[in-house]
């Protein structure tokens, strides 16, 4: 007993016995039954145990993202429906030597859109005017991206005239007799009349009388 340390250190087997006796308790007989009861009261256990909720949650998030992003993306990338104006023209030798009235008549004929073409234009937003395709040795197609909303009938005709003029080498286009065209609406600007405000007019009258 000198206080320097244990006199009789425990052997391994002794320590093992001590530990076994300390930890060697058994659960009570009703423990397993209690756990079963506890587990049986778990709400919605099968959904959690099967791991179904997590995938459903992921799918829901993906759905929300798609519902928000895709329509926006489609709106941004939606192609503007083109109005294609296909003009097939015939360039005949000596066309430039024709008289202006003959050229105007021919142009008017070309611009005369048959009802079927007009219907096709309304349905497919594509206007194709074929002018004697069998006799067109230098047929060419000139697709134009036009908007039916923006272009009025007058503008369409003017554009057609320009296209033909370019195709036939008449740039700037030859003057076309105006009487041969459908009468274009004149741009009339009514004179602007500004009436004096009643209050000011009355004050002016009062000033004049004084």
């Amino acid at each position, binding site marked *: *007993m000198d206080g320097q*340390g*244990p*006199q*009789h*250190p*425990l052997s*391994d087997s002794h*320590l*093992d016995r*001590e*530990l*076994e*006796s*300390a*930890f*060697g*308790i*058994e*659960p*009570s007989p009703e*423990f*397993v039954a*209690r*756990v*079963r009861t*506890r*587990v049986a009261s*778990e709400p919605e*256990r*099968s959904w*959690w*145990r*099967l*791991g179904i909720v997590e995938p459903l949650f992921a799918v829901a998030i993906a759905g929300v993202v798609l519902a928000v992003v895709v329509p926006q993306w489609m709106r941004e990338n939606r192609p503007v429906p083109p109005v294609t104006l296909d003009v097939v023209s015939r360039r005949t030798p000596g066309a430039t030597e024709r008289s202006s009235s003959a050229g105007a008549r021919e142009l008017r004929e070309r611009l005369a859109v048959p009802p079927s073409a007009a219907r096709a234009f309304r349905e497919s937003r594509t206007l194709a005017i074929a002018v004697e395709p069998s006799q067109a040795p230098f047929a060419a197609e000139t697709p134009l991206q036009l908007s039916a909303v923006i272009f009025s009938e007058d503008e369409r005709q003017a554009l057609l005239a320009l296209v033909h003029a370019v195709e036939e080498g008449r740039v700037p286009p030859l003057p076309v007799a105006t009487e041969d065209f459908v009468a274009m609406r004149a741009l009339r600007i009514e004179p602007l009349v500004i009436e004096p405000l009643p209050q000011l007019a009355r004050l002016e009258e009062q000033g004049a009388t004084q």
Partner: protein
Amino acid sequence: MHDPGEVASRLHVWDRLTVDRALAQEFETRLVESSTLAVRVAYSVLRNREDAEDVAQEAFAKAYRAFSQLRDRDRFRAWLVRMTWRMALDRQRSNRRRAAREQPDSSVPPSAGTDGNAQEQRERAEYLWRAIDGLSEKLRVVIVLSSIQGHDVKEVAALLQLPEGTVKSRLFAARQQLKEALSWMARDRSIR
């Protein structure tokens, strides 16, 4: 004629019930074979049978909720040990906060000896618990797991998901500290 959608739905429900039943059977197996382990782990911290069983029960309930990820036996037991240990420590802290309703004498395993032997055994158990309390948590969990159900180093390493070498060195250190502490306590007792 049955609606194909309805048939598929019924099959789905049937499949789910079948899987559910299989999972329930697996869980039942794990419960039976691991209940002692969980209770002992909790008891090693709490030293109170009722508290230990409460904690072990809660740990099993948590394991049940996560059982789809814990179907492997070793994984289940390792998860259960760690969860029970953590929950037991939490319970111990809250117990201490509630001014120690812990009664070490009541939790000592019953002895088959005479009154004199029972007294001596209680004292020895008390020394042992004091010595175990003196260990750091890392050493304590290793000595607890190696002492219950005769786990060897490999099994303890698997339960704690630690390298075997780490477990071996911790176990050695824990045993040395325990032996030393118990010897000192025995010496003090003989002096008294």
